[in-house]
């Protein structure tokens, strides 16, 4: 029996709730009853819950339901670069703690690297009950093959219930492979996590269609339940010096450590002094800057605020600034505490990349610029006057503090 979706016409009250719930426009009303256009339906199941009359049934050929009770604990993959634990991992330990407490299980940190012993105390202080550490020179820098193979081995041996990982370049490359190898469910770029205590399910909420819709996703019959989580959305775990963790050191044979790809060099670009994805403040410039020299004052304002420099696609396409600074649909997605858009009109492609920022400030001379529709605070004016004034005022205020 392949998967199928059915509307029970005797139960359907013709209320039309499912029509609005369908993200694919596949349901319409024919007379008093809902009808699914199977050419458009993707069997996503979004219409099932909104139906108050239980008239829609999504049937999945689950086969034999596996015994999931042997899976326990919440794992956090700890991302390190040059031995330094990345802040997203502390955010995940903060969130993982809450999930582990709701499930009544342990919070475990998993760290791969070289000479990582000195990091154990740091992870324990951030709330890990258990630390799995795999220390080997071949693991010094991230490489897809050995990292994937080791996570697969660990997951097979210790059966975690949940595995979280930062939605970073490394995280998104790594766990996509792991999930395939162990046939786990993986949800990308989550911005909200919770537990259904009754079914012990991880409720994973994430944006789709560039943030225009949100979806909540579960993994009913596979373990671990895996998710990558966006930067800056969860709060970092607080430090508690008294917290102690159990440490499990694992080693694997050399063939597991082998990588088919070879990392030749790691190049840090000067422009990226503050990591765009992790910055608390992002100052971005667009077409209104008129040329590459306009970014001088953008950098200065970013520096004053200890922030990162972003750019609109227009500025990048004009070669005023490298692509690595581009925010938006074909660039990076950021969600800092403060986003300052200077001379950016606010096309939807740009908004997609920054509209989840906590506070948005827009400076633009055009009062009708769409950026003002999402800005918490707007300043209508000439950026060449306003930005220097902001640099002066912020610098003064910061000096005083």
């Amino acid at each position, binding site marked *: 029996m*392949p998967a199928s979706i059915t509307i029970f016409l005797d139960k359907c009250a013709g209320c039309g709730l499912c029509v609005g719930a369908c993200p694919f426009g596949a349901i319409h009303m024919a007379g008093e009853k809902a009808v699914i256009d199977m050419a458009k339906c993707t069997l996503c199941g979004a219409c099932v819950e909104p139906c108050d009359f239980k008239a829609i049934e999504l049937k999945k050929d689950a086969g034999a339901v596996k015994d999931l009770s042997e899976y326990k604990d919440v794992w956090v993959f700890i991302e390190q670069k040059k031995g330094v634990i990345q802040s997203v991992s502390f955010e995940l330990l903060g969130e993982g703690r809450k999930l582990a407490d709701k499930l009544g299980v342990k919070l475990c940190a998993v760290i791969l690297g070289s000479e990582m012993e000195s990091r154990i105390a740091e992870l324990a202080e951030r709330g890990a009950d258990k630390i799995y550490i795999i220390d080997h020179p071949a693991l010094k820098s991230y490489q897809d093959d050995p990292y994937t193979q080791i996570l697969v081995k660990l997951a097979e041996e210790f059966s975690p219930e949940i595995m979280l990982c930062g939605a970073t370049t490394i995280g998104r490359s790594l766990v996509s492979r792991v999930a*395939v190898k162990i046939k786990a469910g*993986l949800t990308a770029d989550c911005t909200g996590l919770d537990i259904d205590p009754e079914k012990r399910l991880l409720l994973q909420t994430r944006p789709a269609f560039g943030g*225009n819709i949100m979806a909540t996703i579960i993994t009913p019959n596979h373990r671990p339940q895996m998710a990558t989580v966006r930067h800056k959305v969860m709060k970092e775990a607080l430090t508690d010096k008294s917290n102690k963790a159990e440490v499990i050191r694992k080693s694997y044979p050399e063939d597991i450590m082998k990588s088919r*790809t070879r990392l030749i060099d790691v*190049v840090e670009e000067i422009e990226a002094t503050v990591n765009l994805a992790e910055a608390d403040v992002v100052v971005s410039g667009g077409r209104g800057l008129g040329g590459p020299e306009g970014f001088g004052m953008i950098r200065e304002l970013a520096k004053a605020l200890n922030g990162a420099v972003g750019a609109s696609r227009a500025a990048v396409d004009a070669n005023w600034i490298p692509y*690595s600074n581009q925010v938006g649909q074909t660039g990076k997605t950021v969600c800092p505490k403060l986003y300052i858009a200077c001379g950016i009109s606010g096309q939807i492609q740009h908004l997609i990349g920054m509209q989840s920022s906590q506070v948005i400030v827009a400076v633009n001379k055009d009062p009708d610029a769409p950026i003002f529709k999402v800005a918490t605070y707007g300043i209508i004016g000439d950026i060449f006057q306003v930005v220097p004034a902001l640099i002066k005022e912020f610098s003064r205020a*910061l000096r005083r503090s």
Partner: protein
Amino acid sequence: MNIIVCIKQVPNTTDVRIDPVTNTLIREGVESVINPFDAYAIEEGVRLKERFGGKVTVITMGPPQAETALREAISLGVDEAVLLSDRKFAGSDTWATSYTLSAAIRKIGAFDLIICGKQASDGDTAQVGPGISAHLDIPQVTYVKKIEDISANAARVERMTEEGYDIVETPLPCLLTVVKEINTPRLPSIKGMMRAKSAKPVKWTACDIEADAGSMGLDGSPTRVIKIFTPAPRKGGEILKGGTEYVSKELVELLKDIVIH
């Protein structure tokens, strides 16, 4: 060099609007386009073919109308096109999608390189590319912004990172996912458009790719969407009024708690 490029047809997000009454996405009249990142994958594949000879095969999984995206790829210089379309694929999450694509790639036969866009603009997962390489058990390099050097059996590429980039060497065959910086896609040529018109993309169903029924579509998908909702739309706030100095001071005051610790 035999290159396979995986693409996805997506709604043109510029046109995505939310109906203020029903609070749902308006999909009527929304144009479908090739996922923006996949355009760079197609261009890179075609450039490599022009340098080294061989052929580029483009493959997509989707409804019958995804054929339009394949024709567009042909107009851009792709040689062959494969459409995977079957009701049995419906409900696929990234696990099942990457499984199905990898099964089809096995059927296509020997290849040197698979190129994918870094992610699709509708789902934004970036999981299918790495998923395909995991199913095929070949090496991968994600977020590639430049192919520095490539020969018959190895490539040296630049992988974009949060801080800059890594230089990575990989043997072929392998899978690369690419970002925008890698190239500037060409426009379709007249000759290409003529070819696209008369081309007949290969159409495969679940039977054709000899895939395991339990690994495709909803049945093969570990994840399940249980709810879809529109986030409360962000409201425009306050426009600060007054002279430059006045509004700058006011803004600093308003943002005090965020920027001053």
